[in-house]
């Protein structure tokens, strides 16, 4: 695509982005702002594609458009507070105008769009990656080899976030894992009002009938299903999720393995893998799935362990931490082994972490406290 055409389209999407941002600020309900946030992520992803960044566009599409929207919607499901628009006087906007004009004034010193600032360091990487690492994708080479220590920190951030969520949202409670469906249905109070309302976790018809007769209401099981008080699956969603899941799995594995020769890598593959689990949680709300917190915690830790152990392995083989040249005699092959190992660790951590995060929010929205 020629530079003029791409910058014209970029201006168009940028204008659309400003419009969507104004709509988010002025929106009155939480649901509207979440959907508009995902729309703005979509426009930003198109801007990334026009700015020659397919890796970042794939990550933004997987994480920004899909995962963060689903997590926000699961959060919003239990959030019953009324949203009011801010009624501020226009005097509050003056500092923002001042800040904006200062930034625009400082922006006159920026390089022109299309010159590529920071070209000194990127020149080094573009020239020496072929000799030193031998991997076609510059982004994978920089991410996994030149700045592999940064990526270790980032994987630790995902791990820490998943663990923090497990602690905050009662992931490790032993009481939860031993709860049977009988006690769940007797605890679910149909019609209670609290900030996080139970959605209806009744699984089988006898438990539902007993709960209904216990709470003294006159409606039958069929009416409870039809009025939406219990979650019921949609046949189209069930069939399509079961059909498309192997293909998405294949895609995730492909992006994980071919992260070195094409846009891809561990982060995108992990997010796409997590979206399969999210699809199953969304399409089968009436089925109790096995409590996966323990397995996902172990998987997140194993991913980070694979990453850190690769570094320790290179130290044991006589070199410094995360120096892949110690892994094999041929330098390019050694780099490929090292990059593959740590991308595997990153993929496992990101997939398990995102699945754990979504599962915890899902359980919160269903009201298991």
């Amino acid at each position: 695509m020629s530079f003029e055409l791409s910058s014209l389209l970029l201006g168009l999407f940028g204008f659309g982005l400003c419009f969507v941002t104004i709509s988010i600020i002025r929106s009155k309900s939480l649901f509207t702002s979440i959907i508009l946030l995902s729309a703005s992520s979509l426009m930003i992803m198109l801007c990334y594609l026009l700015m020659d960044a397919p890796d970042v566009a794939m990550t933004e599409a997987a994480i920004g458009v899909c995962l963060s929207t689903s997590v926000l919607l699961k959060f919003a499901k239990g959030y019953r507070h009324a949203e009011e628009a801010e009624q501020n006087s226009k005097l509050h906007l003056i500092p923002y105008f001042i800040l904006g004009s200062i930034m625009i004034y400082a922006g006159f010193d920026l390089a022109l769009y299309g010159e590529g600032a920071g070209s000194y360091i990127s020149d080094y990487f573009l020239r020496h990656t072929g000799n030193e690492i031998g991997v076609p994708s510059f982004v994978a080479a920089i991410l996994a080899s030149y700045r592999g220590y940064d990526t270790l920190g980032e994987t630790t951030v995902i791990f820490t976030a998943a663990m923090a969520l497990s602690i905050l949202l009662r992931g490790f409670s032993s009481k939860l894992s031993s709860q049977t469906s009988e006690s769940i249905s007797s605890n679910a109070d149909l019609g209670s009002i609290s900030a996080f309302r139970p959605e209806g976790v009744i699984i089988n018809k006898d438990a539902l009938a007993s709960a209904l007769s216990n709470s003294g209401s006159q409606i039958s099981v069929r009416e409870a299903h039809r009025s939406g008080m219990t979650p019921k699956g949609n046949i189209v969603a069930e069939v399509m999720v079961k059909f498309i899941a192997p293909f998405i799995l294949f895609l995730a594995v492909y992006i994980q393995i071919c992260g070195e020769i094409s846009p891809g890598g561990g982060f995108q593959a992990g997010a796409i893998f997590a979206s399969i689990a999210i699809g199953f949680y969304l399409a089968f709300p009436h089925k109790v799935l096995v409590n996966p917190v323990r397995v996902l915690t172990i998987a997140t830790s194993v991913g980070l362990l694979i990453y850190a152990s690769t570094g320790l392995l290179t130290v044991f083989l006589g070199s410094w931490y995360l120096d892949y040249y110690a892994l094999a005699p041929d330098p390019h092959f050694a780099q490929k082994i090292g990059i593959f190992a740590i991308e595997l660790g990153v993929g496992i951590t990101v997939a398990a972490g995102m699945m754990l995060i979504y599962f915890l929010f899902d359980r919160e929205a269903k009201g298991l406290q």
Partner: protein
Amino acid sequence: MIFRMTRYLKIRMLVLISIIAYGLIVIGIFFITSSIIGLFRFPDFYTKMHAAGVADSFGIQLCLLGFALMQTSVMAAVKIIIIMILFFLLSPTANHLLIAAAHKSGLKPYKKKNK
């Protein structure tokens, strides 16, 4: 002479395929445009979803078929056909799920008010 005849036929076939491809893209753009117009003109959520589904489920596929016919390498055309099949399967599903969710939440369809 036979070689010149086969080359003549090949060029005619290429031109024919290009014409079919452009025609398909134009028809696809027409459907997408009509979907956008319908998105603005229809009064209700259900009818708007019906209009939006036309672009996602049908207009894009025609455009993609035209793109696939315009490709020079077979592998690129096969990839585009795979994308087209995925769109054909998944976007009517998304459409249906949105409408089912709206119906389950109790959204009432539009009724024309007389007088």
